[in-house]
Every structure is written in structure tokens, then in C-alpha cells.
């Protein structure tokens, strides 16, 4: 038997496969397709203090080997999550993690305080990198000062594992990573979506109602791998790799580049059973390469 468990701060994940926020609903939408308990954990929908309607349709555009989205954090707010969703999710024993967004530092803090009380939720992922909302969101994630201010404030009230999700839309991602580590993050996850745009040449209009949106899928994988590698070499906290992971080989590439765990996003849309296949594929790879402990893959790239 190969050992698949990895640690993110105080949390032990039974394997390195997580799901990316905004692509996995609340998890329960996948019940028909997979056994959620096979996953290392699942990160649910981006949640904000107050309910949000999100952006207007169209919110999606297909692009070469990827897609743009401009959902804009549609969700019913943190109280609704706590009262109506959370209790249902406690039946799964895989770790549930919520992704938290906000427009102001205060919003983040109030919501984080509430989430701190949830016994069966060992961590939050702080989204300081959403490119699809006018206020807050990415604005925090693209400067060291902005990132630091949110993370510091949330750290004060949130006592469990604090994962901070980084934006790729920056000149130097290692700067931001170091800033959030210094501000108290227990782990960093990256990348969120790359800011992009799609045009309908026939209609001479942007495809998205918001003109620009966030690019995800295999197209972004090279950029994501590079940033994971850079950040792995810049910080001490565990790195979670995200961006265009479609299969076990992709996941292993991220681990070799320094990721302790990975999140699968867009891949879930193409194959809702992909996460479990990736867990199995990592196991296969380890057997073929005679690797007993998945931790031996982390950052094992020979350069």
C-alpha cells in the first residue's frame, strides 16, 4: 500500500486531491458521480458575508483549451451557508473547506469569525484573487499591502487553518506569497484565474456581460506550474497547486513542482468523476515508480 496522506498545517488530508472553489458547488451535487469520502477534501463555493446575485448572463465563454467565467461570486451569504448548507455537509468525512471572499477587510473578518465556530470545518481558503467582482476581490491580491491587510485581520479572528488563494495577475507572485506568509497564512493555494477576454467577431461584441473574466482550464497550466514552482521556492508553508489539472499526470507535475496538494477545477465540468480518477492515477504512478510515500513527490523536480 502506498501512503497518500499529506498535511496542510494541522490538517491531514487522506490524499492530495482537493476540489477548486466555484467548480464543485457544495459537493453534494457530485453525489451521483463519486463518493466524496474518497477525496482529500473539497473546497466549496465562494462565499461572502452578504448574499450576492453575481453578474449578468452570459458569464461564460469557451476558449482554446479553457474557459472564461464571470460568475461574480453568486452566493446566498455566509449565514445561509452556516444554517442551511453546512449541517448537510457534515455527513461526509472528507475535509470540507469554504472559500471566503469579501469587498472590504471588515466583511472578510466578520464572515471569518462566524466560520471559525464551525466544528467540522478545519480550514478556510481566503480568496483575495477573484477577478470578477468590482470591489475587493482581486484588488486585495495584487499588492503586498492589500494582501497583508486582509490576511492579518482575518488571522486575528480565525484560529484554524488559514489558506490564502493567490492571484496570477501579478508581476511577482513570490512577493505576494511572502507577504501573506508573513501575515500569518498557514498555506497558500494558487492560481486563481488569469484575467482574460473573449470577443464575438460576428456580433462585434464581448462574449461576457462583464467584458473580461477569469481564464481557467488546461490553457493556464504552464503559467500555474511556473508560479507554484516559484512560490514553493519562496515560502515555507505548504503550497496547494491549482490550474488546468485534468488528470493524474497533471497533478503529479504540480506536486513535483512543489505542491503538497492540488485542487481540480474546470476538469469537474468535463468529467464529474475526475477527482477520484486522479486519486487512483496518483496511486498507479507511485506503484510504477516505486514511490511509497506521496510526500516524496513534493518539490522532487530534478533541475
Amino acid at each position, binding site marked *: 500500500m502506498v501512503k497518500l496522506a499529506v498535511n496542510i498545517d494541522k490538517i491531514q488530508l487522506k490524499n492530495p486531491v482537493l476540489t477548486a472553489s466555484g467548480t464543485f*458547488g457544495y459537493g453534494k*451535487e457530485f453525489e451521483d*458521480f463519486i463518493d466524496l469520502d474518497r477525496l482529500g477534501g473539497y473546497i466549496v463555493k465562494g462565499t461572502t458575508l452578504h448574499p450576492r446575485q*453575481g453578474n449578468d448572463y*452570459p*458569464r461564460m465563454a469557451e476558449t482554446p*483549451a*479553457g474557459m472564461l467565467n464571470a460568475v461574480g461570486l453568486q452566493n446566498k451569504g455566509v449565514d445561509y451557508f452556516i444554517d442551511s448548507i453546512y449541517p448537510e455537509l457534515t455527513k461526509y468525512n472528507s475535509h470540507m473547506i469554504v472559500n471566503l471572499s469579501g469587498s472590504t477587510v471588515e466583511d472578510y473578518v466578520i464572515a471569518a469569525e462566524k466560520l471559525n465556530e464551525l466544528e467540522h470545518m478545519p480550514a478556510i481558503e481566503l480568496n483575495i484573487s477573484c477577478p470578477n467582482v468590482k470591489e475587493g476581490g482581486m484588488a486585495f491580491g495584487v499588492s503586498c499591502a492589500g494582501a497583508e491587510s486582509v490576511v492579518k485581520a482575518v488571522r486575528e479572528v480565525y484560529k484554524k487553518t488559514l489558506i490564502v488563494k493567490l492571484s496570477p495577475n501579478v508581476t511577482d507572485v513570490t512577493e505576494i506569497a511572502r507577504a501573506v506568509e508573513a501575515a500569518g497564512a498557514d498555506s497558500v493555494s494558487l492560481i486563481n484565474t488569469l484575467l482574460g477576454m473573449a470577443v464575438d467577431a460576428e456580433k462585434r461584441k464581448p462574449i461576457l456581460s462583464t467584458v473580461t473574466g477569469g481564464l481557467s482550464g488546461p490553457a493556464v497550466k504552464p503559467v500555474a506550474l511556473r508560479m507554484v514552482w516559484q512560490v514553493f521556492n519562496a515560502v515555507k508553508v505548504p503550497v496547494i497547486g491549482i490550474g488546468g489539472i485534468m488528470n493524474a499526470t497533471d497533478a503529479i507535475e504540480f506536486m513535483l513542482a512543489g505542491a503538497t496538494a492540488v485542487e481540480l477545477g474546470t476538469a469537474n465540468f*468535463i468529467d464529474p468523476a475526475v477527482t477520484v480518477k486522479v486519486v487512483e492515477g496518483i496511486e498507479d504512478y507511485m506503484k510504477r515508480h516505486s514511490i511509497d510515500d506521496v510526500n516524496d513527490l513534493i518539490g522532487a523536480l530534478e533541475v
Partner: protein
Amino acid sequence: MKKSVKDLIILENECLNDDSHKIVFQAPDVDSDILPGQFANVLVKDSQTTFLRRPFSFYDVDVDEKSFSLIIKKVGDGTRKLCSVRPGEELSVIYPLGSGFTTPEKDEKVLLIGGGSGIAPMMLMAKKFAPQTSNIHILLGARSQKDHIVLDEFEKVGNLLLTTEDGSIGEKGYVTNHSIFKEISSFDKIYTCGPNPMMEAIGKIAKDNNIFCEVSLENTMGCGFGVCLCCVTPTQEGNKCVCTDGPVFNINELKW
């Protein structure tokens, strides 16, 4: 019936006209739970331009033969590719997805209106309820005679009415110009699927005449099963997902 993602064997690919194909899938687990209006989300293999799945309404479900069929109209790379599939090949399909049309009562007089590729769910609708009622009227609109497909199939399941924009078959004009609308108040329920402008016009007539009306929307989809929130339509209760809260909506729910 549980949703699943499966590689299904293609049993048949029938070319209906220049644009449209009927594709029959072997589906060992189909059962009679599948409702008209529900859809299947099909993966386009081996395409450099088609990354996401493509949704299509069920046209027919054969519980005995364990198969279902879709009617696919070629509008872009994905549908073109799907229409070139050969019997014996496999396609990955997620199904059944979405909500269905509500069931009309036995004695109700029902009008089904289909335009373009929106005729597909109307067939399953008519087939499901034909045994219970003789009061199904089916109105199909198209640009021209050659765009009207599977008419013989529709004739078997209801009273068939046609329009064409060029008058080459049926009444001339859009579906909403059809003379049946003169007696629209005699209908209890209208079900429709087709281009949005058509459905909006029908919805307006239904509202004006206080007739129950359900429409099936065709918003572009990221996932098809309620997790990406990309397919939303504004409703009286805020944005709702077409793929799970719909594709079928009562017109009163929509902001039309």
C-alpha cells in the same frame, strides 16, 4: 434516476437534412423517469475548438430497447463533429440532467410549440402523453420546407400544424402568426422550446390569455449539473440555473 457520466455506444446516426442528425445512443440504464425537457450533456472528443460538453434535449427514450436519441443541429464545430460520429463509436454523456416539463392533466387541451432544434423535447413530450389524451396539438416552425424534419414522426403523436417563413409548407410566417392562435384561449397549457424571441412572443400571448405556459431555455452551459453557475437566467427569485432549476421554467417565474 441517478445522474451518471458514461461512455455510450452509438447505435445509429441518421442524417435528417443538410443540418440535422438523429443520433441513437445505447444506454443500459435508461428508465421511464426521464422527463421531456431533460437533457444529456455530450463530450466532443478530438476537437481542438470544443472544450466543454454540449447539451441536447432528449428527443426520444426507448426504455425497452435501452436507448435514447438526440436530434443535433449543426451550428458550430462541436455539433458538426458530433454529427460525424459513426455507429459503434462511443461518446461520453452525462445524463439525465435538468428538470422536465410538468405533466398535463388527462383532459387538458395542450399546445406544443417547437422552433429550430427546440422541436426535440416536444417529441418526447408528445410521446409521453399521447396515450393519455387526444388533445395534443403540435405547432412547428421553420424557415422553409427543407428545414422541417421528422414530420412523419410528429404526425403519429398529435395534431400537427406547421409554419414556414417562406410559405413553402404550412402557413406562412412565424409560429406566432399561425391561425391556431385565434383560438388560443381554448387551450389549457402551452409548452414550448425554441429561439428566445419565439418563446418570449409565445410567453406574452400566454400571459395575455392567462394560459399556463412552460418554456425550455437553451443558455450556454459550463457544467450542466448546477456547479459552475454560468447558465443563469434572471427570475422573480433572482438568478437561477437553467441546467438544474430549468431548463424548463414557467413563464411567470421569468422576468419576461
